[in-house]
C-alpha cells in the first residue's frame, strides 16, 4: 500500500472488512500536516449510517445550504475529511457502517483515538436509537481504554420539527440510558455531554463551538483577553470566530444570546460572500478584512481580522463607536496578544516539550499582564 510510511489511522483498516471500494480517493490525506495539526483541536465524528454526519460536515465546513444535503449520497467508504488548511479546527469524520465490527481486535483503535481530543457521536433523534446507543456504548468503552483524556460529546441530531417537549424527552432518555450503560460497564467516571442539534438552524454551530472550546487549552487566556478588551473599548459583546466554520473559539464572560450569535454568523457570511465577489474566493479573507454594519436600533456590528483563521466580531452601541480610534488601537493590542498566545504554543511544540502546558500558561499570563496595561 502506498501509505505504508505515513502513520495514518486509515491504514489500519484491514481489507477483509469488506471495503472493496475503499481506495485512496476517499482518503485525501496530507502526510505533512502533523506539524501544525498538533496544535489544533482534533475532532472525530462518528455515528450510525444516515445519522447525518456528512450533512453536518458539508453544512459546517463547506457552506452547503441545508436543503442541498438532501441530495448527498450515503457515504459508502471511510471518509476522512481534513479541514487543516482553512480552519482553526482540525476535524475528521469517520463513518462506521454497520458491517464493521468495531470491537474486532484487528481494528487499530490506538491510532484512531490516540491523538483525538473529542469524539462526537451523532444520534438521529427521529429514528429508533437503540442500535445507536449500543454502538455508542461500545465506542466509548473502547476509546476510553485507549485515551482517557478524550471528551465524549453526543449530538442528538435532526431535532428540527420536533416539539420542545419531545426534544427534552429524548435528551433525557438518551442521557439516562447511556449513563446506565456506562455504569453497568463500570465506567461511572466518564463524563458525557449532550447537545440538541439541527443543520437547519444555528444549533449545530453552537454545539460545535462548545465542543471545540473544551479542546483549546488557551481558552481561559483568550476569555481573559476579551474580558479586558471589551469594557475598555465600550463594546458589549465579542466573539472570536473561526471564519470558515463560524464556530466561536471564545467569547467574553457575559451570557451568549443565541440570536446575537446567529447575527454574527450571518455577518461573516455576508463579508465572505461579498469579498469573494469583489476580490477572489481564495483571498476573500485577508489581512485587510474588516466590516462595519449599522442597524437601526442603535447597534453596530464590527468585524476585524485577527489571523488567517480567526476574526473578531464585536457588538456595540452606536454612540460608543465615536471613539473608533480607541477601539482600533485596543484591538491591535488584543490581536498581538492572541498571536503571541498561539505562537508560544507552536514554538513549544516544536521544542517537543509536550507536557509543558503549565509553562505556557505562565508565559501568557505575564504577557497578558502587559497587555492589560496597554489596553487601559
Amino acid at each position, binding site marked *: 500500500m502506498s501509505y505504508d510510511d505515513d502513520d495514518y489511522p486509515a491504514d489500519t483498516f484491514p481489507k477483509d472488512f469488506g471495503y472493496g471500494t475503499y481506495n485512496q480517493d476517499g482518503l485525501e490525506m496530507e502526510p505533512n500536516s502533523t506539524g501544525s495539526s498538533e496544535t489544533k483541536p482534533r475532532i472525530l465524528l462518528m455515528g450510525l449510517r444516515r445519522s447525518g454526519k456528512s450533512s453536518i460536515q458539508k453544512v459546517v465546513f463547506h457552506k452547503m445550504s441545508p436543503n442541498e444535503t438532501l441530495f448527498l449520497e450515503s457515504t459508502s467508504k471511510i471518509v476522512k475529511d481534513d479541514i487543516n488548511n482553512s480552519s482553526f479546527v482540525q476535524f475528521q469524520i469517520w463513518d462506521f457502517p454497520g458491517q464493521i465490527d468495531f470491537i474486532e481486535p484487528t481494528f487499530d483503535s490506538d491510532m484512531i483515538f490516540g491523538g483525538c481530543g473529542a469524539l462526537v457521536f451523532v444520534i438521529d433523534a427521529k429514528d429508533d436509537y437503540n442500535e445507536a446507543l449500543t454502538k455508542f456504548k461500545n465506542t466509548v468503552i473502547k476509546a476510553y481504554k485507549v485515551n482517557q483524556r478524550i471528551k465524549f460529546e453526543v449530538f442528538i441530531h435532526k431535532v428540527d420539527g420536533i416539539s420542545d417537549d419531545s426534544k427534552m424527552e429524548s435528551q433525557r432518555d438518551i442521557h439516562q440510558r447511556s449513563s446506565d450503560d456506562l455504569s453497568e460497564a463500570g465506567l461511572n467516571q466518564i463524563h458525557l455531554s449532550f447537545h440538541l442539534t439541527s443543520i437547519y438552524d444555528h444549533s449545530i454551530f453552537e454545539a460545535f463551538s462548545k465542543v471545540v472550546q473544551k479542546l483549546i487549552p488557551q481558552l481561559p487566556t483568550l476569555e481573559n483577553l476579551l474580558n479586558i478588551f471589551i469594557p475598555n473599548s465600550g463594546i458589549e459583546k465579542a466573539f472570536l470566530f473561526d471564519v470558515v466554520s463560524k464556530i466561536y473559539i471564545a467569547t467574553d464572560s457575559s451570557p451568549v444570546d443565541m440570536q446575537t450569535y446567529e447575527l454574527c454568523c450571518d455577518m461573516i457570511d*455576508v*463579508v465572505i460572500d461579498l469579498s469573494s465577489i469583489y476580490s477572489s474566493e481564495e*483571498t476573500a479573507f485577508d489581512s485587510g478584512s474588516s466590516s462595519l454594519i449599522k442597524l437601526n436600533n442603535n447597534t453596530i456590528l464590527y468585524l476585524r481580522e485577527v489571523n488567517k483563521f480567526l476574526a473578531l466580531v464585536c457588538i456595540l452601541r452606536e454612540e460608543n463607536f465615536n471613539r473608533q480610534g480607541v477601539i482600533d488601537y485596543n484591538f491591535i493590542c488584543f490581536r498581538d496578544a492572541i498571536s503571541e498566545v498561539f505562537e508560544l504554543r507552536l514554538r513549544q511544540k516544536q521544542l517537543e516539550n509536550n507536557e509543558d502546558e503549565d509553562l505556557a500558561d505562565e508565559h501568557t499570563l505575564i504577557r497578558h499582564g502587559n497587555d492589560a496595561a496597554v489596553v487601559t
Partner: protein
Amino acid sequence: MKKKVLLMGKSGSGKTSMRSIIFANYIARDTTRLGATIDVEHSHVKFLGNLVLNLWDCGGQEGFMKQYIAQQRDNIFRNVEVLIYVFDVESQEMERDVHYYQSCLEALLQNSPEALIFCLVHKMDLVPEEQREEVFKDREEDLIRLSKPGNVTCFRTSIWDETLYKAWSSIVTMLIPNVAALEDSVTHFANVIEADEVLLFEKATFLVISYFQSKKNRDSHRFEKVSNIIKQFKLSCSKLGAKFQSMEVRNSAFAAFIDTFTSNTYVMVVMSDPTLPSEATLVNIRNARKHFEELENPNNSAMNHHSHKYH
C-alpha cells in the same frame, strides 16, 4: 402611476413562490408552506416613488384558466402592462401548457397590444447543471416561435439561486419611467467619486434597478448574488427586530459600501482603492442623495427647487 402585471402559468409552476420571495421577504425554504392560489390574488407593491405594481397572481388550475380566457377575458387582459408567464421546466404536459399560453397571448394581444411579455422557464434547479444551458436554449427557441406575432423575452429561473433576481430585476427595470435619467445620474456619480461599481437597489425587494461599472468583474451574476446576500442578511436582522442601515465590507483589494440612499433605494459603491478613508466615500454618498431623491420624485416641491437652480 399604477402598472398592471399579470402573473400566469400552470398550477404548481411556482408563481406564488417567486412572488413571495421577491415581494414578501420569504426565504426559498418557506415557500413549501404555500398552498395553491385560488382564482386571482391581487397585490399592490409600492415600487420606486410613484410607481405601483399591481400584481395579479392568477391561480393556474385548468378551471380558472378557462374562465380567464372566456368569461373574465376583458377583466383580466385589459390595461395590462406586463404579462409574466411561468413554465415549469419539468412539466410533463408541454402541449397543454402551450395551448393555454397561446390562448392567453391571443387574449392579451387583443386587449392590451402594447403589453410586454416575459416567459420564465422555472424550476431550473431540477435540471442537472451541465444541461441547463442547453435545455433553456431549446425552450427559449420554442417559446419565441410559439409566441408569434408577439415579442417575448425569456429567462431561466430557480428560487434556489440568483437567477430569480436577475429575471425580476430586468423586468422591473423596464417598468421604471425615468430609467434612462437614473442611469445617467448613476454613471455621473460613479465617475465623480471614481468608483469601480455603483449599484442602485430598490429598497423593499433589493432588486438592482440601475448600475454602473468601470472595471470588468469576472462574475457576471454578481448583482443578483449581492441582492440575494443582502436580502438574506436583512431577514436575519429582522429576526432581532432590527433593520440594517448601512454596511461596509473591505479587504486588501477592495472596499464596498452599502447605504440607505433615497426613500426608495439603497446604493452600493465599490472602490478598488481600500486606502481611501471610508468617510470620504460616505460623504460623497450623502451628497448625492438629494439629487437622486429629486430624480425619483419629480412631482413634488423638490422639483421646483431643482428648476430654480438652473434658471
